[in-house]
């Protein structure tokens, strides 16, 4: 148990405020790697909650624990790209070297080995987080070294034998081996912006209403994936009444395959915070929070330094930029491992110390958000882009992109290509060009927008006649096929939060890719909705049935029809949790049909021989012999 006085101390640092339970638990986990019964009892007593209520929050987050974890805890990512880069060998190496199976702690309590969802390192997999330090491009040999070092009791940071990564990854407050891999800069990433220009001088050129107007005119849409018009969000927020208003920057980048926010936070943190300040100015907000996913803890010290620098320069604090009454500051809220917290209302729940369960809407966060105040949640990239727009004007910005999708988009490209990394491309860029850019060949499929997006192909199907197409691409045959011929990144064709994962023709799309994504959704569902809690699991089992050779024609139709029930879920995660299966049926139906038995109309997975094995083993072996003798 943690000493009671220490717990009380930590509670007092957070003013015994149960809405700060996340921070309280994060601090306590630094002292002891799990929360024992006694510690929880103290918390419950001091916060006037029941023990079950505290455990409700603890048991929700991947990086909190109710059971002892190790002195060193290894979190090996289970992203699809890690699996494509032979994660299996790394896992085996860790299991062998540690002498424990995954999701266990060594008997001496030294090493905990866990699997974890995508940690935002898709361009340098296989990767793992050990005590908040990220190790990338792992090899079995590196694993051996790491485990040896940990057994010798070394500081985890000292086990980085590689060069630090490029840019600020080498900053003394970061010192990480993570690489930025920026491969293509365009109008947003181009370093033609002198930091803090907006807070220093720009701010004086605009009234708050004019800032909103400018953003509205630029047609900037939320870059997290949902694409809600940013200007409109700011306008709604500014019109809602409340004692305070809140700007949240959503840096809970959890969609597998995206890592562009990580790079923005590493290389453009000033612009991120400046974007928040601009949003605060426009909407009259006084509270700012950067919600940083736990996986990016290694950036925390660095980001805090930037905030302090800004405070010193009066770019945060009171009367910012010399504007009387413009008070705004930013704190950083760490998450604790939950994909769902990327959903804005779940993120707000988490910030209030609760489980990250999305809220029912209405009311929307812009009306009633963090602690009931009007709250504007923006993606990291959105805020950075807003700063550029305010510098150069909406008119300039609308010179890029297409009619329905203006400007540029940061893509996080990974998978089967020569040059994984960050690419800033104009909206409207065809997928074929993106493939060319990143050196992808022999492309079978592309996951656009992460698991919650679409699995699409590049294949030009123009040589097929409509009957053939109808056969392959039921139910919307031609329409789907036509879009295939030149699929583009845009809100009208392929909207995306930026995750692009490429699979070549050697990949087993259903068994390897779709299965991994379904497992991801099962793991990351908050469980609140009956639909999303259960359906992905049921659908995954059906897919497994098909892959095991027990599929019949009606199974494909069942999957399509069951997927509809998911659309009744509360949030985007639930509504899209069937997408890996649904979009692969739409776009790769032949892969399913390959597994379907043509002559059988009814098949279950029941197998009599397998079903009696336990019995036979228990009854017929030793006891039988013994009895006969």
């Amino acid at each position: 148990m943690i000493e009671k006085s220490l717990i009380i101390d930590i509670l007092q640092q957070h003013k015994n405020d149960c809405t700060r339970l996340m921070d309280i638990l994060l601090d306590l986990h630094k002292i002891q790697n799990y929360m024992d019964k006694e510690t929880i009892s103290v918390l419950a007593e001091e916060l006037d909650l029941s023990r079950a209520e505290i455990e409700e929050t603890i048991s929700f987050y991947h990086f909190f624990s109710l059971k002892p974890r190790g002195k060193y805890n290894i979190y090996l990512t289970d992203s699809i790209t890690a699996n494509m880069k032979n994660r299996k060998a790394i896992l085996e190496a860790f299991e062998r070297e540690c002498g424990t199976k995954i999701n266990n702690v060594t008997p001496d309590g030294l090493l905990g080995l866990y699997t974890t969802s995508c940690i935002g390192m898709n361009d340098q997999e296989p990767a793992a987080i050990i005590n908040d330090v990220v190790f990338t491009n792992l090899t079995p040999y590196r694993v051996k070294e790491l485990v040896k070092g940990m057994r010798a009791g070394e500081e985890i940071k000292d086990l980085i034998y590689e060069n630090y990564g490029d840019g600020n990854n080498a900053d003394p407050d970061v010192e990480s081996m993570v690489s930025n891999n920026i491969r293509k800069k365009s109008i947003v990433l181009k370093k033609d912006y002198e930091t803090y220009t907006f807070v220093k001088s720009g701010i004086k050129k605009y009234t708050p209403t004019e800032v909103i107007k400018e953003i509205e005119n630029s047609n900037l849409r939320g870059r997290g994936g949902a694409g809600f018009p940013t200007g409109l969000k700011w306008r709604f927020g500014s019109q809602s009444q409340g004692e305070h208003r809140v700007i949240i920057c959503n840096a809970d980048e959890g969609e597998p395959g995206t890592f562009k926010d990580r790079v923005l936070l590493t290389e453009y943190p000033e612009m991120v915070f400046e974007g928040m300040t601009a949003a605060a100015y426009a909407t009259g907000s006084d509270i700012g929070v950067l919600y940083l996913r736990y996986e990016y803890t290694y950036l925390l010290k660095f980001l805090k330094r930037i905030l302090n620098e800004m405070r010193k320069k009066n770019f945060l604090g009171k009367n910012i930029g010399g504007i009387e009454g413009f008070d705004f500051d930013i704190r950083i809220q760490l998450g604790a491992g939950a994909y769902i917290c990327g959903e804005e209302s779940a993120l707000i729940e988490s910030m209030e110390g609760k489980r990250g369960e999305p809220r029912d809407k209405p009311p929307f966060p812009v009306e009633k958000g963090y602690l009931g105040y009007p709250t504007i949640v923006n993606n990291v990239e959105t805020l950075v882009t807003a700063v550029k727009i305010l510098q150069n004007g909406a008119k300039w910005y609308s010179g890029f992109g297409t009619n329905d999708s203006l400007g540029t988009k940061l893509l996080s490209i990974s998978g089967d290509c020569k040059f994984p990394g960050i690419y800033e491309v104009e909206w409207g860029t065809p997928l074929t060009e993106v493939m060319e850019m990143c050196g992808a060949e022999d492309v079978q499929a592309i996951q656009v927008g992460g698991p919650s997006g679409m699995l699409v192909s590049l294949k030009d199907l123009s040589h097929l006649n409509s009957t053939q197409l109808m056969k392959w691409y039921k139910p919307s045959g031609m329409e789907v096929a036509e879009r295939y011929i030149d699929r583009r990144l845009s809100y009208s064709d392929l909207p995306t939060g930026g995750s692009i994962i490429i699979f070549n023709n050697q990949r087993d799309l259903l068994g390897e890719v779709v299965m991994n994504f379904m497992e991801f959704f099962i793991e990351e569902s908050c469980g609140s909705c009956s639909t999303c809690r259960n359906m992905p699991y049921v659908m995954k089992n059906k897919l497994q049935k098909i892959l095991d050779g027990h599929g019949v024609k009606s199974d494909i139709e069942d999957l399509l029809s069951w997927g509809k029930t998911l659309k009744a879920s509360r949030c985007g995660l639930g509504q899209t949790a069937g997408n890996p299966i649904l979009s692969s049926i739409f776009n790769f139906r032949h892969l399913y049909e390959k597994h379907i038995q043509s002559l059988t109309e009814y098949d279950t997975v029941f197998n009599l021989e397998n079903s009696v094995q336990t019995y036979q083993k228990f009854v017929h072996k030793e006891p039988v012999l013994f009895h006969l003798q």
Partner: protein
Amino acid sequence: MNKKVIATASLAGCFGCHMSVLDIDERILDLIELVEFNKSPIDDIKKFTKPVDIGIIEGGCCNSENVENLRYFRENCKVLISLGECAIMGGLPAMRNGIPLEECLREAYLDGPTVQLNKEGILPNNEELPQILDRVVPCHEVVKIDYFLPGCPPRADLIWDALYALISEQPMNIPYEVIKFD
């Protein structure tokens, strides 16, 4: 009108569904006019002697004999009905599904409070005995089932209405009161 041929079986059930068939009371006389029974515990015919129109299955599958019997019914019956909760969802026997089979066997034959007489630890392993499945499964997870009549037992009225509808090839009317899971 040719008489329809009916066969029934009780797999892992308690025979309550069969009792419920008898609960149709005097309508049983009408039924006899309309159907003839083939393989069934009611008339003790052990093997199918002709093709069957309607097979009625009570009980789910908890052992290999149940599975064989069920498959035998599927091969010989045009229409197969799952009658009652056990056939539809495993029913009471399936309550053991939450416990690993080894544990069940251990409790029943080795460690349970009532097994003091089994000092040698004899386990039921005679070849004649059916083999126990890992878990009890509903009938439709073994073979295709055409109709489902829930209840524990299904109400006699539901059984009568369903049989009458099938025999007369009329649509079935289902009043609220007759669909029950207990």
